[in-house]
């Protein structure tokens, strides 16, 4: 059992580091983890749940605003949604999503329709990818705990 726990802990450590190295996450995610303790054991999951709900809602708003079949493109609504998504992604440490929002905002301000559509597609892919990867991370945590181990603190720096 000890060997299994050690293996799972190693996987968890390596996977966590890879998420930072590949820019899926940044220091703000580390700050989120610090806010989780015995008093609020599901804090990170709860915050991320709010973030992914935000992503669905805002991406839907942006898609509607970029729909040329309904009339002129509403860049103002797109811009407002991008601004919100940039804020949310910054708050949870979703580094790639935040970076995309910066480019997206520039395309909005330039009223570049093709650029906006491309960014929207990329944002959709990125948040879904992040969601899958974090789910894998949480599953590893669960496996460690179920095996009787402790989830290791991972030093990113």
């Amino acid at each position, binding site marked *: 059992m000890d060997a299994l726990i050690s293996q799972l802990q190693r996987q968890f450590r390596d996977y966590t580091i890879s998420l930072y190295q590949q820019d899926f996450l940044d220091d703000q995610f580390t*700050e*989120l983890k610090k806010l989780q303790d015995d008093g*609020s054991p599901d804090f990170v999951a709860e915050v991320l749940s709010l973030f992914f709900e*935000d992503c669905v809602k805002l991406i839907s708003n942006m898609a509607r605003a970029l729909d040329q079949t309904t009339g002129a493109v509403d860049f103002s609504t797109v811009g407002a949604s991008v601004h919100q998504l940039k*804020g*949310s992604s910054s*708050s949870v440490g979703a580094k790639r999503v935040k970076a995309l929002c910066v480019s997206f905002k520039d395309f909005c301000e330039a009223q570049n329709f093709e650029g906006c559509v491309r960014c929207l597609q990329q944002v959709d892919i990125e948040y879904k990818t992040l969601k899958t990867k974090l789910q894998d991370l949480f599953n590893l945590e669960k496996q460690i705990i179920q095996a009787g181990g402790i989830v290791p603190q991972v030093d990113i720096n």
Partner: protein
Amino acid sequence: MSKVEKKMSKQTKPKETKKKLNVLIVDDDAINRKLHARIINQIGGVSQTAENGEEAVILHRDGNASFDLILMDKEMPKRDGASATKKLRAMKVTSMIIGVTTLADNEEERAAFMEAGLNHCLAKPLSKENLLPLINHLLDAYNG
């Protein structure tokens, strides 16, 4: 960094106080409300939230609200942070009000927000590290 700033930046826990810090978190973003409430909780305070500046003003209308600290987001629908701060100060609210801005806000925008009646301004996302020194400064006033 000055000696005072160095000393303040090393603070990792709130100073002991008989009084539990009572904080109002004003932010239209649910994630930020949750984050900031958790930070306040971890440093031993209690918090209430408002989704915009207008709700913050309404909370103070009957004169019974008594917050030690208000964390006021800058950009909000219905009533933004600057407008809410001006209104609260006009209503003689003496709570410490910390404005919460974004890194994208420039110096002029931050200065304009401060002019509304803030005690301090911090860029989000907030952390215990950047909030605690300001809160301990507030607790000094209670303990002193």
